[in-house]
């Protein structure tokens, strides 16, 4: 089951869901709109390899915005720290960004229960699109799980800001 907006607000008040900072005006009927932080990273290499640790270039989004180009992978992050030990978050774009052809996550929209950090966003633009720091860029929903819960204790635990892939550690 998916939580309604008012249920998300109640669970935030009880401490069962963390959204920090929290603004009730960002609640929708069944999700919460999150905002883009001012950090974007790109990989130095064009050709990537899952076995190799990649170096990144850190960009700060200026006031006039930052243009995302097709064919380049950008990692951004939410301004908000988000997570729950009781509900499973899923990440989505907003229909208004989707209508501009902008993907804000790639393939892994389901977040592990117990993970608590600024979400890394994965941008893939269909046409060049300008984004601004602090803009509403996506939404998070929360789902009730069934079964005994084991809290996330993986490679990205507690890491804030855009986080590059650490999959190379699988091969070490």
């Amino acid at each position: 089951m998916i939580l309604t907006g008012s249920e998300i607000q109640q669970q935030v008040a009880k401490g069962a869901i963390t959204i920090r900072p929290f603004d009730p005006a960002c609640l929708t009927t069944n999700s919460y709109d999150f905002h883009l932080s001012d950090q974007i990273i790109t990989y130095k290499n064009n050709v990537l390899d899952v076995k190799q640790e990649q170096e990144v270039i850190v960009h700060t989004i200026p006031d006039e915005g930052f243009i995302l180009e097709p064919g380049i992978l950008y990692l951004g992050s939410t301004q908000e720290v988000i997570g729950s030990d009781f509900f499973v978050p899923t990440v989505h774009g907003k229909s208004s960004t989707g209508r501009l052809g902008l993907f804000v996550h790639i393939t892994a929209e389901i977040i592990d229960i117990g993970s608590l950090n600024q979400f890394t966003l994965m941008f893939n633009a269909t046409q060049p699109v300008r984004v601004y720091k602090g803009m509403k860029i996506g939404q998070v929903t929360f789902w009730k799980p069934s079964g005994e819960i084991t809290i996330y204790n993986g490679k990205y635990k507690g890491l804030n800001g855009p986080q590059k892939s650490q999959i190379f550690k699988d091969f070490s």
Partner: protein
Amino acid sequence: MILTGNAIIKAVQANEISFDPFVTDQVNPNSMNYRIGDELYVLNEGLLDPKQEKTFTQLVFGKNGYVLEPGKLYLGHTKEKIGSQMYVPKLIGRSSVGRLGLFLQVTADLGQLGAAHQWTLELRVVQPLRIYPGMKIGQVSFWTVMGDIEKTYIGGYTAHNLPAGHVAGRTIT
């Protein structure tokens, strides 16, 4: 509701979920990691027409891996046989591959209730990316259903263990 990792383990033990071979180090808090098998195909270039049979070329996908290129669609498959008559599977990638710009599944991540099989994976990249057979590439979650389960999937892809792309019905055992 989405099953927690512990609930997935119990369901596998109770034969309500098939995940074969099953190893507990692939269990996440609310999903199971799956590996990519060693057959990889690329969709041949040219105009696609849903009325015509699509053609694929099999690629050499050995220990040196393969560099996926942007603008192409690749078909792979899960190494594991995955399925459930009771819970709806949802097959997606891991965030560790999403962070490298790899899409797994193009739009249809929701599976059908039904028999276990090796799932076909649809791969697309933003930048060139080298992947390797046998790597943990994606995750599958399982969702409880509401309502009577009157029929399970018996469509054209039921026995579709190889990513041959269409209803040719090739299987491996």
